[in-house]
Each structure stands twice: as structure tokens, then as C-alpha cells.
């Protein structure tokens, strides 16, 4: 059975270390936290390297188009403690931008390209941010709710 990570302790530790950057995000999984976009690389590096949490595996990187914002969702897993964590980053609807985490996980490279391709979220610092599934001359980002074919 998967263990539930102690979110209160984790969020407290992150806020102490990087300033006010993380908070608990309430949803039906009890394992989500919300992080400020400008701090995402530091936070991800900390929860990856910190031996108390040891989230070494990036299971999934996806995005959601909500009416009020774009959310990038990172699913992390620890093979040491068998606990999971969902990290959410809420982005501005007009100019969705978030730092890339390819420096931490090479696997994030293609997943960020997919999110960029279909949802139009820009990952700053990505080494090769271009379309991956659609042709290069495609117009628009088809998974956005306001996309018209």
C-alpha cells in the first residue's frame, strides 16, 4: 500500500528554505501541493535530493486548462519510501510560462515538449522547445478549450 507523504512537514520545510513558495493543495488525493512557478526548479531539486522525501522518479508531467488558469501537474514517486506527491503550478492565462525542469529529469524533455505542443505553455530554459506531435507549421494549441479547428 502506498504511504501518504506528510505534506505539512514538507511544505513547512520548503517555505523555511526558499521563502513563501509552497502550500497544501486540497483535492481528493491528499497528496498535492501547490508551488509558485518561479521557485519550481529549486523546490523540485530539494524534494528530489532530500533523503527524507527522495522523490527520484518523475512519473508524469501534464497540464490542465482551467477557466481561471493553466495548471502544470508533476507527479512524483519515491522508490525508497513508496510515497507519491503531486506538485501543481498555476500559471497566468495570458502568458503561461514556467521554468523547465529538464536539468533535473531528462525525461521531462519530451513531456514538456508535448505540453508546449498541445497546450502552449512555454518552458523557459528548455534546450529544444519545439513541436513534437504536430507538424511544425501547425497553427494553435489543440488541447486548449478555446481552440477552434
Amino acid at each position: 500500500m502506498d504511504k501518504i507523504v506528510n505534506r505539512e512537514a514538507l511544505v513547512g520545510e520548503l517555505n523555511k528554505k526558499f521563502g513563501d513558495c509552497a502550500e497544501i493543495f486540497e483535492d481528493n488525493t491528499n497528496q498535492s501541493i501547490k508551488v509558485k512557478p518561479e521557485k519550481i526548479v529549486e523546490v523540485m531539486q530539494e524534494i528530489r535530493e532530500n533523503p527524507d522525501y527522495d522523490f527520484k522518479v518523475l512519473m508524469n508531467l501534464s497540464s490542465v486548462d482551467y477557466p481561471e488558469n493553466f495548471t502544470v501537474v508533476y507527479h512524483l514517486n519515491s522508490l525508497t519510501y513508496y510515497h507519491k506527491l503531486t506538485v501543481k503550478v498555476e500559471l497566468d492565462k495570458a502568458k503561461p510560462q514556467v521554468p523547465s525542469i529538464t536539468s533535473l529529469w531528462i525525461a521531462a524533455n519530451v513531456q514538456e515538449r508535448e505540453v508546449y505542443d498541445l497546450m502552449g505553455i512555454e518552458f523557459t530554459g528548455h534546450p529544444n522547445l519545439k513541436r513534437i506531435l504536430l507538424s511544425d507549421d501547425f497553427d494553435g494549441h489543440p488541447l486548449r478549450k478555446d481552440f477552434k479547428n
Partner: protein
Amino acid sequence: MDVIKPHEYDELLRNNVILSTVDAAFNWCRSRSIWPLTFGLACCAIEMMAAGDARYDIARFGSEVYKPSPRQCDLMIIAGTITKKMQPLVARLYEQMAEPKYVLAMGSCAISGGPFTDSYNVVKGADTFLPVDVYVPGCPPRPEALLYGFLQIRQKIANPKKIEGLRKHG
């Protein structure tokens, strides 16, 4: 040693010589050894493979040689959904094939885009950019249907005059 006598010539010719035009002979040969391109785009390709296996045995019609190089092929089976990203590659494969070449559109997707026709990334049928000779409907078509399509292609190659007005290319 037997000597053929002049009055036997007629009978010998009748029994041993077939007269035809070069074109008709070529077409007869071509129609009985259609080599398809080893090339599948989606789930229809699985049925195409089944047609090549022992149970349905496309070798009965001289088409068991799936060639991996388009330069050695006569027939392109469009087996599956053509996405907009794949379309230029399909067109290039077709252009690399040597004449005479034929195209068989297999399944709903290759005919019209099928269930995905409204998608932002799907081409609405192979005939939007290729001269399709035979359409095999189905989703996916059974191997028997593909074999029937092969027989239609064979007739089309062997009797070019019958379909002259319909041919889209040489």
C-alpha cells in the same frame, strides 16, 4: 530425326505459339505479381499482416513479397489513419515508387478520415493527395476484403482498356 513437313506448320503454330501484344503480356505478368510496400499506419496494418499469413495467404495471388523499399514495389496499401504529420512522408514514399504504381486505400481512415475525420491532425482520406485505385471499406476490413481488393487491382492492371476513362495516372 523427324523432319517437319510444310503441311504440318499450321497445326504446330496453333498448338505452340500464342500471339499477343507486348503490353498485354506485360500487364498479365504485372497483374499476377503485385508487390506491396511494407508499410502500415494504424490498426488496419494488423489485418494486412493477417492477410499475408498462412491462414489467408496472400501468396495465392502472387503478392506475398512485401518489399521494404518503395523502389521495388508496385502497390501501396494505405493501411490506417494518415495524420497531417505523416502525410508528407506517405507522399514521398509514393513518389519513390517506380511506375507503374497503384494505391489501395484500406479502411475508413484511408478512405475519408474515418471516425477521426473531424480531428485537428487527421487527413480526410488518401485521395486528397494520392491517386487511389481501389477502396476497401471497413473498420478495419477483414483480410478477405483486402484479398478482394487485390483481385480488383489485378483486373484493373490486366484490362487497362476497360477502365481507361477512370485512370488517374499512367
